[in-house]
């Protein structure tokens, strides 16, 4: 339960899943209603495995998963009622049209809104009269999104949902997700390689590498604390506080700081001059954290 007695949208504890040559976890993770959690990591880091475990498409080796206060048990499917999952495969009937597939979903979800599904299809430019097997990769991604948004689930698991979409449709998708979040009851767990997308939407980012969580950071705090700083300092080898990366050409230095106040204070103590600092994009910060590996845990 969250602080207000409202169930967490997602609670993962002690999740572990192993394959030959790869182990995910163990880790804990939670997500409150009304929040967006971005899941960021390189290919093979364990993002899709985590999503599949949460969606019940993979059984974890250990750990508990609760969705909106309901434990995910294989025999009882009620915990899936309020879950929408966009993953690598949708399982749609390839020889049926997109419209026929959406009709099928409507017959299984009590909360399905035909008007909403048609509206979303129009906004995304998804043709309803074309067979799924004839859809482009982008249109298949649109179908997956309409399929999960049509019954208005309170928890959305979106694993690379905008892969293959052009920038205009990506922007429309993000707009729709903003609308979904408006009532404060919905939560989104979102993984993507397009960090510029998630940085606009996510309240927090969780970084994962090689199956291990590297850290969890609020996007606003990241934007405030990370800075690229250039300065001049005659001192040779020295370790500057709060620095993730340091480059030096003679007396000219460039550092990437994950704690700009600490770094600037230390530079002042060292007597650095011509200090200039510029903000970094969330994408640049994410790359630094993922490159930094274990360092990011202390960031």
């Amino acid at each position, binding site marked *: 339960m969250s602080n207000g007695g409202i169930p967490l949208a997602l609670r993962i504890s002690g999740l572990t899943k192993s394959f030959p040559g790869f182990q995910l976890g163990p880790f804990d993770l939670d997500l409150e209603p009304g929040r967006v959690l971005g899941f960021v990591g390189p290919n093979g880091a364990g993002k899709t495995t985590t999503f*599949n475990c949460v969606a019940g498409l993979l059984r974890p080796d250990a750990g508990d998963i609760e969705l909106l206060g309901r434990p995910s048990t*294989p*025999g009882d499917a009620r915990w899936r009622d309020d879950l929408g999952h966009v993953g690598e495969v*949708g*399982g749609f009937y390839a020889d*049926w049209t997109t419209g026929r597939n959406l009709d099928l979903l409507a017959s*299984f979800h009590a909360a399905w809104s035909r008007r909403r599904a048609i509206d979303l299809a129009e906004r995304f430019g998804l043709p309803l009269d074309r067979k799924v097997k004839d859809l482009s990769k982008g249109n298949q991604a649109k179908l997956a999104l309409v399929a999960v948004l049509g019954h208005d689930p309170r928890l959305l698991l979106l694993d690379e949902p905008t892969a293959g979409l052009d920038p205009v449709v990506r922007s429309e998708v993000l707009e729709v997700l903003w609308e979904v979040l408006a009532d404060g009851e919905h939560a989104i767990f979102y993984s993507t390689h397009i960090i510029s997308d998630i940085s606009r939407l996510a309240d927090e980012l969780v970084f994962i590498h090689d199956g291990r969580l590297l850290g969890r950071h609020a996007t606003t705090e990241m934007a405030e604390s990370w800075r690229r700083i250039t300065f001049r300092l005659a001192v040779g080898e020295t370790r500057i506080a709060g620095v993730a990366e340091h480059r030096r050409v003679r007396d000219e230095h460039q550092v990437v700081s994950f704690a700009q106040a600490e770094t600037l204070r230390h530079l002042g103590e060292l007597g650095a001059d011509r200090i200039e600092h510029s903000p970094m994009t969330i994408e640049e910060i994410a790359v630094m954290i993922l490159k930094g590996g274990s360092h990011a845990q202390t960031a």
Partner: protein
Amino acid sequence: MLRLLRENLRYHWGLLAVTVAVGMVPAGLVGIVLLTSRAGPQSVVVSLLFSMVVASGVAAFIVIGRDAGEHRPVLHLLLGVPLRAVALSRVLTPVVLQLAGSAAAMALALGAFVVLERERYDRLVAILPFVAAQLLFVGQLVLAAQEILAARRDRRGHLWPAALAALLAALAFFAWVEVFAKTAMGWKTGLVLALAAGLGLGNVALFERRRSFVR
């Protein structure tokens, strides 16, 4: 489960019709060839009815491959349907399709038995269900092979060797029924159907114990 099964049948129905229709062409040609040789006109009826039963079995095999290729369990699981219902619909879809085609062939054979010359068709009425039962068994065998491979991929240590041993035992029993059993065709058909039903139940149980539904 019934809703899933109904949607699956709606999706695959056309495939059964096409497979049976396509199967009629070579069967008709064989019948005509037999007709022009020393065989009687009943050879055309026999070859067409056999082709209906076999085509229904072929359609069932295609359905198994098609559902696996389109990752159907992923969609069905995310519909909020209980796992057992997904497992049952997966096993029953090819069975129902094949039975529908075979039942149509049986009805035609019975018609021929009643309306036409009785002695020419009584053996056909007995052998068509046996052929259909054999194809049902082979269909469940294909699903069982998929489940054993899945269990092996999931590294379910004791489960997949045990399932493989059970499958080999079922195959051995099937071979014994086919080759050595000195019993009436009806009994043989019943034994093979029981074997297919046992495999089907095993397939449901193995599917429910899967650790991955995404491969």
